[in-house]
């Protein structure tokens, strides 16, 4: 983000969320550690408030999954529930984790994918995913089942892949987010 000209700050306290003009929720690790980490730092409430107030937010990988109600990775743990659906484990008939470069299937006009070629590849590394679903999914990816690769719902944006590791296409997507968030 910094290399694309954004001024960034790592959030550790809820007050910082209130003053942000855009938020990024990156994530690597376990769903349970992630949502309890947010809770223990008192960030959950501030995050919900900012999102309800229209602040643009970009979730990445586990950051996307945390926006859902729950995940099969941590049954009983509550997600941010901004999208009232659940994250599932990838089916056992495909290699899991889904690791590597894959392409997307556009379901509708997308802000994040603006001017990025349809056949561009993005880097994925995950074992869980949310099913692609009409209202929120702008682009799907298929690995065992069609899952939400790009979510766009009002000010809420999220991607299952890692744009920061997806070469030129990924940088382009991050630029699209920054431009739209301005």
């Amino acid at each position, binding site marked *: 983000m910094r290399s694309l000209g954004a001024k960034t700050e790592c959030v550790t306290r809820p007050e910082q969320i209130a003053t942000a003009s855009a938020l990024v929720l990156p994530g*690597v*690790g*376990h769903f349970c550690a992630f949502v309890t980490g947010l809770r223990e730092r008192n960030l959950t409430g501030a995050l919900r408030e900012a999102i309800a107030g229209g602040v643009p937010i970009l979730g990445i990988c586990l950051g996307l999954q945390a926006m859902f109600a729950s995940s099969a990775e941590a049954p009983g743990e509550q997600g941010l529930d901004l999208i009232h659906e659940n994250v599932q484990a990838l089916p*056992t008939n495909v*290699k*899991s*984790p*889904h*690791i*590597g*470069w*894959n*392409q*997307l*299937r556009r379901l509708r006009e997308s802000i994040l994918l603006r001017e990025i*070629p349809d*056949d*561009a*590849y993005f*880097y994925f*590394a*995950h*074992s869980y995913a949310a099913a692609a679903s009409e209202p929120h999914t702008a682009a799907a*990816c*298929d*690995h065992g089942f069609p899952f939400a690769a790009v979510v766009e719902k009002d000010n809420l944006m999220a991607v299952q892949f*890692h744009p*920061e*590791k*997806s*070469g*030129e*296409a*990924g*940088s382009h997507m991050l630029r699209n987010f920054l431009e739209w968030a301005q």
Partner: protein
Amino acid sequence: MTLARRIIPCLDVDAGRVVKGVEFAGLRDMGDPEELAARYNGEGADELILLDITASRDGRATFLETVRRVAQQLNIPFTAGGGIRRLEDGNALLRAGADKVTVNTAAVARPELISELAAQFGSQAVVLSMDVKKMPAGWEVFVRGGAESSGRDAPAWAREGVARGAGEILLTSIDRDGTCSGFDCGLTAAIAEQVSVPVIASGGAKTFDDFLAVFGEGQADAALAASIFHTAEHSIGALKTYLAGRGVPVRLNR
């Protein structure tokens, strides 16, 4: 829409320089890690692996610094490893900018290391590296840079590693490494059939057809090479164009 087969250059690092050995012995200087990383990133490498090949004997500060500098050059994923014995070693590499860590000798000695790393960082961040040699009784896992037999059967160890949470297997054929006689497709397929995670084939790459064979017959998800890329004998772009022309799904656009 298919998951692309990956081409992964590997940098073996010794005291801040990229080196290359032949059959795990005898080292040659191949250049500066940052320069090579930037070149591969630009040429369309899908990923990079950085191995500290002196880790068992030397200090780690130099390698961490190399990882930090290489991370700055990349917008593709990269794995670092060599000499990881504890959770903290893995944590240090990830904090320095690596996306995944790879474990080898220490995981054979104490398999719980794989579980600990996976629980902390997720399976997608844990690569089990196996150096394998063909023995009369079958494929056997070697440790300490290929110098010592572990007595473990390679397919069984692969299955155990995955059960413990390894998200990928980096499979090196000691017999082929540095020999330029092609990947060991038999070994690669034998392991790929045993596990549900991606397998990265390594050791012996020389020609474009070697890559074609390991993605076909070898059932590899990714292929790793070092010398042929370092010496600029082959460009990654040309290799990928060749593979794409023969029906292998690869990422061509950048």
